[in-house]
């Protein structure tokens, strides 16, 4: 049984039927990419999984139990955390306070302290800046903070919405290196939504390609990489 199992999910974003029957699964400890052009329904799929958009139809199962229709705060408690699109750092909170908010739903004080250590070891920049306001960080640092904040929930599944967006290539590779490290060391499964197919396929084990709310291609990243042209034809002429 996979950690996350999405079956025939349908969901709307505003008046738009953005997701029209998506099925995907994320195995325990795996890295899965969800690719597609702008407006393909990637973000809405993630929003439905983390509870901020209510599905119209279909099932979302975590460990075989339905989490569809639960509130975001209940879903975070079950071990699914989100790194939102555009980082969404709390600008007027310090770096440390941002991290504390990632751990809001936890009560295990001692291990929360350990997890600050984990995040700071992963992103030493954040430790240097822990007393600074989130709004004062650079784009790359904000992405690190957004990932750190997600990790503070001690998730088994971390959802990442466009983590490479607007970042320089060197920063992108640092960030993905950190993500692979988390996956390897902590066994955290990652579901990464990306427009940057190149980066995503290099890091993920399995990938799905969405187009207009449906999955049109799926397979191990290796295979999709070999078939790059097919993938890119669905992604729009971006790369």
């Amino acid at each position, binding site marked *: 049984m996979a950690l996350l199992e999405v079956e025939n999910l349908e969901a709307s974003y505003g008046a738009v039927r953005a997701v029209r029957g998506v099925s995907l699964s994320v195995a325990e400890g795996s890295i899965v990419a969800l690719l597609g052009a702008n407006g393909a329904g990637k973000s809405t799929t993630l929003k439905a999984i983390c509870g901020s958009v209510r599905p119209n139809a279909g099932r979302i199962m975590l460990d075989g139990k339905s989490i569809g229709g639960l509130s975001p705060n209940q879903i975070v408690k079950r071990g699914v955390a989100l790194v939102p699109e555009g980082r969404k750092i709390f600008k007027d*909170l310090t770096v440390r306070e941002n991290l504390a908010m990632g751990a809001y739903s936890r009560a295990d004080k001692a291990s929360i302290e350990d997890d600050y250590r984990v995040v700071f070891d992963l992103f030493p920049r954040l430790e240097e800046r822990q007393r600074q306001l989130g709004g004062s960080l650079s784009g790359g640092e904000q992405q690190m903070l957004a990932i750190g904040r997600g990790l503070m929930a001690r998730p088994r599944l971390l959802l990442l919405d466009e983590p490479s967006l607007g970042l320089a290539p060197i920063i992108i590779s640092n960030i993905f290196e950190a993500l692979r490290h988390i996956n390897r060391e902590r066994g955290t499964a990652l579901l990464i939504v990306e427009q940057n197919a190149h980066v995503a396929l290099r890091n993920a084990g399995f990938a799905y390609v969405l187009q207009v709310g449906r999955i049109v291609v799926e397979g191990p990243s290796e295979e999709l990489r070999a078939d790059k042209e097919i993938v890119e034809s669905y992604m729009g002429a971006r790369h």
Partner: protein
Amino acid sequence: MFGQLAMSGLATGSLYALTAVAVVVVFRNTRVINLAQGDFAMIAAFLGIVFLKDFQLNYFLMLPLVIVCSMLLGVLVERLVMRPIADTDWLTLFTATLGVYYILHGVAGWAWGRDTKAFPVTFDAKPVSILGTLVSEGHLVNMAWALGIGLILFLFFKYTKQGIAMRAVTDDPETAKLMGIPVRFIVMLTWAMAGFLAAFAGLLLAPILYVSPGMMDEVLIKGYVAAVFGGLYSIPGAILGALMIGVAENLAGGYLGAHFKTATAFAMIVLLLTFRPKGLFGIQARREI
């Protein structure tokens, strides 16, 4: 004369700050301009009389009871009135608090009468000399209370999980929700804090203003004006605004005549909104609300 007027102005201003800060705290987490904030304090003052006179409790037994009742009143208003309409536009929310204002006025008048009542604890006017300026002891006591409450709020917002979460909700409620922060609970907490501040505003102003259903009407407006000084978002801005209003109206009252006192607060807001419409420090809503 100037020093004396300024000092007692600061003391009154620090009591206005209790209302101003409550207006800010509620507004920035809920988009609600709470017109009933003054009435929360008025109810607290009446409850103070009930506990002190009818139940013959001493002040420090009465205080926690009034605080708890006042916080409950805030929570009750949130649950029964504001939550069901939380997703509507600001004008609906604003009008609902006007409804609460009239209901609380009515309830107080019905339960305790419309006459002005003396508060059992009187304002201590005995002068004390501080740095060559004479100040009433009562004013010093009030300033000490306001300072203590300010310190409690500071510690709460800076060092407690719920306090930081309240700031996170101010910053970005959508993201706060995604991070697993129960935003509804935080909003409830916000109204409880409004009640907490109202308890002190009511009990500390009662000996000065005496107690009646309309006792807080002017203070509410001054508190609101002070909140606007901080752009409705900044707590330090609201406190500074409240202190400025307290001092300015006292100076105007002392030098120009008592009838200029209240007009001063209004003159200040007209000037402020003309020249600095985003608040004294330009700290304004950075996002559309």
